[in-house]
């Protein structure tokens, strides 16, 4: 176990390095990109541009610039945004992380619980009308673009039905931290949680149902049935664990990606200033330092999530050893 942890930590550092180097390269290879221009204010004279390049080290070779940026990101933590030199990138991300974590954790709890419920229900009630109806709902959920669902949700809750008893509790758009007001934090996140989880519930429910149905035909299940156990008990206690491999793999990937800033559209549509929102803004203004910081931050979480999933495999299927 210890070697596993040490090895994964080492890999994490390697992955973060590779990702950041690749990001750096792609950025500077993009045509029309010139950080000096953003840093020099609008309509700068050529002389000002040259001076900015010199003072920010932008005319040095790329590997040196990369190392400089990494130093500013990790060691001195003084990395400054290209689109606003008054902004320190590291505190900016630290301030945005709680919003994303709140959004993603809540949505994850919701989608895992509902997906397991739906998947089990559909598998148990195979042959009745419940199965196809649940599956169609699931498929509609995963086919509906987030931007649509979020927008419609806003339209209804902020706009037309804002004053009805149904939605008058909905606060104005935006994120309130838990420390400021737990009730506003909660109320402001309910609709974003639902919107984000709709995308995933369907996918996971279908995957789980398919795996449950397969496992149903295994011998050990026939044994359980032969012993006289009732179907729900058979499904939940005996087949669920064996069917969770795909579910857990995908969960690790999705959770990691969302924390890393993957909930861009949800955050933008609901005005939640999390890591995804920062990514979106940085992307629009081609703000390399913020992009780099977000990417590195994200890489860490993704590798962490995958490591946890690999450990979970061992629990789900004891014959598998984590590598």
């Amino acid at each position, binding site marked *: 176990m210890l070697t596993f942890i040490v090895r994964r930590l080492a890999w994490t550092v390697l992955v973060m390095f590779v990702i950041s180097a690749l990001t750096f390269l792609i950025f500077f290879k993009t045509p029309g990109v010139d950080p000096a221009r*953003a840093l020099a204010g609008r309509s700068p004279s050529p002389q000002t541009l040259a001076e900015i390049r010199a003072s920010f080290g932008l005319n040095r070779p790329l590997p040196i610039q990369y190392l400089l940026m990494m130093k500013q990101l990790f060691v001195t933590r003084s990395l400054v945004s290209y689109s606003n030199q008054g902004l320190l990138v590291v505190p900016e991300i630290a301030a945005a992380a709680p919003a994303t974590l709140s959004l993603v954790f809540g949505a994850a709890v919701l989608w895992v619980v509902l997906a397991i419920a739906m998947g089990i229900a559909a598998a148990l009630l195979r042959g009745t009308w419940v199965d196809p109806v649940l599956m169609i709902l699931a498929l509609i959920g995963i086919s509906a673009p987030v*931007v649509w669902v979020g927008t419609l949700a806003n*339209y209804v809750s902020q706009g037309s039905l804002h004053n009805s008893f149904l939605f008058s509790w909905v606060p104005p758009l935006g994120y309130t931290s838990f420390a400021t007001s737990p009730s506003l934090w909660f109320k402001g996140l309910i609709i974003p949680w639902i919107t984000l989880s709709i995308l995933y519930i369907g996918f996971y429910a279908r995957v789980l149902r398919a795996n449950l149905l397969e496992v149903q035909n295994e011998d050990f299940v026939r044994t359980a049935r032969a012993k006289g156990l009732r179907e729900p008990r058979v499904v939940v206690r005996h087949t669920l664990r064996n069917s969770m491999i795909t579910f857990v793999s995908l969960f690790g990937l999705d959770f990691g990606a969302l924390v890393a800033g993957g909930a861009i559209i949800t955050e933008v549509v609901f005005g939640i200033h999390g890591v995804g929102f920062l990514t979106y803004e940085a992307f629009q203004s081609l703000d390399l330092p913020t992009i780099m910081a977000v990417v590195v931050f994200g890489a860490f979480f993704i590798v962490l999530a995958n490591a946890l999933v690999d450990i979970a495999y061992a629990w789900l299927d004891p014959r598998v050893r984590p590598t």
Partner: protein
Amino acid sequence: MRFVRSMHTTAARRVARHPLRWSGAALGVAALALAGCGSSGSSTPAASSSAAAKAGGTFTILANSSFGVADPAQNYTLQEWQLLIDTHDGLTTFAKENGLAGTKIVPDLATSIPTPTNGGKTYVFHIRHGIKFSNGQVLKPSDFVTTFERQFTVPGPTSFYSDIVGASACSTKGCNLSQGVIANDSAYTLTINLTAPDPELMDQLALPFAFAVPSDTSLKLLGNNVPPGTGPYMWKSYNPNTEAVLVRNPYFKVWSAAAQPAGYPNEIIEKYGLQVSDEVTAVQNGEANEVFDGDQIPSDQLSQLNSAKYAGQVHVNTLTADWYMALNTRTPPFNNVKARQAINYAANRTAYVKIAGGPSLAVPACQILPPNYPSYVPYCPYTTGPQTVWSGPNVAKAKQLVQQSGTAGMKVVVDGTNDQVGKALVEQMVSDLDSIGYKASAQLLAASVQYPFVQNSANSAKWNVGWSAWYQDYPAQSDFLNVLLGCNTIHPNSDASPNIAAYCDKATQAQISQAESMEATDPAGAAKLWTQIDHEDTNAAPWVDLYNPKQIDFLSSDVHGYKWNPQWYILIDQLWLS
């Protein structure tokens, strides 16, 4: 200045069927006062407000994105300027009045506008006594020395003040203006020496770049900390990811109601990050007071705003601005004047106006100068009817010109931005070009990439038609005719070359120089010459000018005292809340 589009341009609609909650709140007030609205082209009905002006309250503005770095020496956005005019003052300023009265230059921190001596190269300003910054320091003339030096030591636009003696030797490493800006703190005078006469100086001194900051202000970029100012408000905080907060300056007293009147709200807050459609909903719900006027309201909500319910809350004003497509005169086919005139004849400006939101939000344009601008005389040769106003395209003439130019069938790349409106404009231009025999294609780039891309001559071979937009810096003809179409603003291999079309005509340039030198001695003659230059440039067709945009101010129902100033647009601190 160039147009900065808000970043989040896709947005969704929301209907706020907000009931009578707000209309009852303020004695049945529904309409706002609009003094002298006719000349500025506002189309809102004027009505008197029955709510008395009173100080107090918090005025909240919602803006899609922040304005970047807050240091006034660098920031070149109208978004921050609208706030800086409330927190800082300069030697001169534009009168904080509604309509045309707001284009008048009045003395602000100076006691009067001086007449220049020494052949127009020396100005002596008397600085007012007893004015304090928001940190309690007293304003003195040497504060201006720091202010002007910062203009060069902080990276940013320098062209406005480059004719001050000593400025040419200034750079971000250091600046010595001891010969150019001379402060006498005992006589309380400030002398400015120029290398050449500059009739636009008073306008340039009224820009926030030249607003006074204390002399101990750092010469380096201050990031997001705005230095103290002399205005009725002061900056309490600015976080570009959340909000900016302005509170009252405790040391402020009115010294000139025309230049810097007292403000009504106790606090002004600007919040960032919502989609524009959500901003509109919030203002409809009364949760905020203004949708930042630079944010483009999406079409769904435009239709909502037509309803009589919002009659007093929506104000539309014509801007002195052009939205145009520059024609790359360096490469075929548009190095040929007939080809350029052809597309001008064929461009279906009605369609472009519809993309902008219809005739109530844009006016078709053919010429360079916008309406309500000095020297503007309506002129449109590229149409079928009378040559003063565009009435329809002349496709037959266009095709004829294409044949004559010998460029039929050539490939044309139309470059624009990839947001919704930008994309639509480009697709319409592609269609117009195809209709007269070219093979056009679209090239959509992100806004932050597109503007430098079309300016840089290194990319010249990659595009033929490039979208751009220009808003006045101040009401001077040279701001359009010289900056955008002058020979001296073509900077090869630079991302900052505002003459995108790379149009240079020696004869016209000579006229520009003549007009500039006539400003001081024969302003009327100069104005006529500028008109002539405008019409000549229009005939040479370096652009396809599409339209002059109008701007919407959408305010909540409890806002009164609306004033629209052609330089700063909405005057925020002159609004009061009921």
